[in-house]
């Protein structure tokens, strides 16, 4: 079964749900998608190196087998959930302490 594919999509959906639940509305900002494009550009380098070398090898049983250069497409969905979760929680916790704001 394509467990990695399923897990990556589920994680991305969970993160999108969390953004609604916490009312952080990060995914609705155009700034987020610009930021994601910047992250992906660097990701191509780092993730590309890790998978080209390969420092990390993926089991073909668990992912679709579609790759961008050497990077499995699932890594981009996985990356989205990791990156988006970081920003959503950061925005959430930052406003929890209004004292620290200017």
């Amino acid at each position, binding site marked *: 079964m394509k467990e990695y594919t399923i897990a990556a999509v589920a994680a991305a959906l969970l993160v999108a749900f969390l953004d609604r639940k916490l009312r952080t509305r990060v995914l609705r900002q155009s700034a987020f998608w610009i930021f994601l494009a*910047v992250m992906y550009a660097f990701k191509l380098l780092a993730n590309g190196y890790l998978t080209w070398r390969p420092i990390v090898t993926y089991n073909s049983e668990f992912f679709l087998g579609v790759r961008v250069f050497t990077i499995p497409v699932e890594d981009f969905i996985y990356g989205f959930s990791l990156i988006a979760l970081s920003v959503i929680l950061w925005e959430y916790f930052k406003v929890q302490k209004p004292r620290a704001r*200017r």
Partner: protein
Amino acid sequence: MRIEYMLVLVCIVIGPLLLSRDKKLKLYAHPTALAKTIGIVCAPFWVWDVVATARQHWWFNESYVLGPRLLGMPIEEWLFFVVLSFVSIFTWESTKYFLRRQR
């Protein structure tokens, strides 16, 4: 080289780490938020990674990691999430800063 994965992490984090002290970003104006975010991001991704590594979704080449492992994962892989959540926050604040300045 066994240090390669660690070098990749250093390359990812070194720029953001050096530039993160820039006052305009106000990254360290919220130390608790920063620590909480990194901690809470790491927890589920560590669990996912430990399970996926155990189920052999992926494996790490012995030739490119330093050696020490915890729950089957190289220390580099544990650090990966600390690095990535920090770099994400830094890049997010930088993106917003540059977009604000453009207007």
